[in-house]
Structure formats: structure tokens, C-alpha cells
């Protein structure tokens, strides 16, 4: 018995609106502090330049910040009770989500002042029987490019609904 309806299934290969984020030194410093970074290349322009970067450089997993803004930067009435954005996922019998697998390949580093575009696609959706009922896996692909059209990162992310 499947829990993925035809309506939900029609979301496969859906492409979401392209999202752009102007990455500031402030954005980078917030994420760096939040993750306990202390390397001055994330906070101090001179230190970053001395290390060979054009400006303050973002930690490698910073693309995550950009894709979260792409999904969740919506009016509060477009959020579920649990705070997650409601327009982001197909209609499923359960909205209780947990993070599954994440896989990221890195290209050019992100530095302050970059304009990073993220293109997002629902790659596939499938279900498995879990110990406490059906689990639905929703797999997203993200492509991040900078203002010069250079590839910054490719990410594949699976969210699990139970």
C-alpha cells in the first residue's frame, strides 16, 4: 500500500524558482560563529586576503545557508506548525520530517560579495516500510553557481517523512 498519492508523485522533477543570495561578510561571520569557527579567514578581510582569497571566505558547508533561505524565506503564514515551509514539499500523509543523507561536491569557494544562485529540483520520491510505519524519502538536487557562472557546489539532500 503506497502512501505517495498520484498528486504527490506529480511533484517528481519539479523545478523550484531560482533563488539568489548576496552573501555578505556578516552572513559568513554569523554562520562561522554558530559553528565554532575561529579561523580569521572567516571574519577578517586582511587575513583572508593574506591566505589568498579575494575577501572573507565562507566555511565549506555555507551553501546550506543559501538553500535554507531559498526554502524558508517566506511569510510566517506560509509555515507549518513546526516552522517548516509548507510550499516546499509534496502533499504527504505525514509532515514530520527528519534529515536523511546529504552529499555535497565543492567547486569555487564563496567569498563576501558573491551573488550565489541556487537552482533546486525534486529529484525523486520513494517509500520504505519503517519499524513504526511507512517512511517517505524526498530527494532534492541543488546547484549553486556564483555571479561569474562558476560552479560553487552541487548538493543532493534527502529528507525523510514519517
Amino acid at each position, binding site marked *: 500500500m503506497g502512501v505517495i498519492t498520484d498528486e504527490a508523485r506529480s511533484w517528481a522533477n519539479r523545478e523550484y524558482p531560482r533563488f539568489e543570495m548576496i552573501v555578505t561578510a556578516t552572513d559568513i561571520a554569523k554562520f562561522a560563529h*554558530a559553528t565554532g569557527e575561529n579561523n580569521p579567514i572567516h571574519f577578517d578581510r586582511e587575513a583572508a586576503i593574506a591566505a589568498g582569497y579575494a575577501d572573507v571566505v565562507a566555511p565549506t558547508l555555507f551553501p546550506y545557508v543559501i538553500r535554507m533561505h531559498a526554502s524558508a524565506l517566506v511569510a510566517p503564514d506560509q509555515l507549518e506548525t513546526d516552522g517548516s515551509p509548507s510550499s516546499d514539499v509534496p502533499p504527504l500523509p505525514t509532515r514530520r*520530517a527528519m534529515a536523511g543523507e546529504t552529499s555535497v561536491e*565543492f567547486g569555487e569557494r564563496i567569498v563576501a560579495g558573491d551573488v550565489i544562485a541556487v537552482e533546486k529540483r525534486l529529484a525523486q520520491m520513494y517509500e520504505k516500510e519503517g519499524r513504526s510505519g511507512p517512511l517517505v524519502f524526498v530527494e532534492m538536487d541543488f546547484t549553486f553557481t556564483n555571479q561569474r557562472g562558476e560552479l560553487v557546489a552541487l548538493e543532493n539532500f534527502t529528507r525523510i517523512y514519517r
Partner: protein
Amino acid sequence: MSALPEVGTEAPVQTRTPSALDLFMFSASAWLLHRIHYDTPFTTEHDGHPGLLIHGPLQGVYLAQTAESWLGDQARLGSISYRHLAPAYLGDTLECGGSVTRADDEGVEVELWARKPDGTVTTTGKARFERR
């Protein structure tokens, strides 16, 4: 330039015990609005968890930091993947470590993990480093 480590070499373990403030800062910096990382009544009463959850992506960052502080001078992080096996809650300590699983002319591959002191692995990962 120092050589990259051989297969079997282990990373220095990094121990992390994120506070409620750390969890909030991570949510805020990423605009991650999911209540299970900052709203204790919702998390315990509505979702039935014993406490606030340490974000999976924050654990992913901890794994990347463990690997990059170990190998980053000699090699560039080319890719990383990670997945979550068990929940980690506010107050939990995570011991983050790794070891080299493959070494060749291009670089090294490592496996990574975050585990609680009782041995429960919460997140496992793999990363590829390219020689600089």
C-alpha cells in the same frame, strides 16, 4: 609540504557539546525555522522528544571541521557526504573523529563519525580530499 596520512591513520578527535545558544545561533544563521531546535515545549509535548535536537547539518559541519582541521593544510575538501543514524539532543556530547580509508596520487578518502560517549553513533560520513 607534509605528506598526506596513510590508510588507517586516525584524526584527532574533536569533542563538541553545543549549548542552547549554539543551537539557536545555527538556526538563526541559516534561517532554519524548524521548532525542534529552539522551542522546548513544542519539541517535548508535540513531537515527543526528550529535548531540543542538535541539527543534523550542524553535525555535518562538525564532521567537515574535524576533517579540514586535520587535512586542510595539505589537501582541499572536494566532497563530503553524511547521514544521521540516531538523534542527538541538547546536552549530549559528540566526539567527532575519522580515519583514512584510501590514499592515492590524487588525495585521500576518509570516513567520519560523530558519537556519544556511550558509543551511540549519531552521524557517519565520508569525505574526499584532493592534494593541493
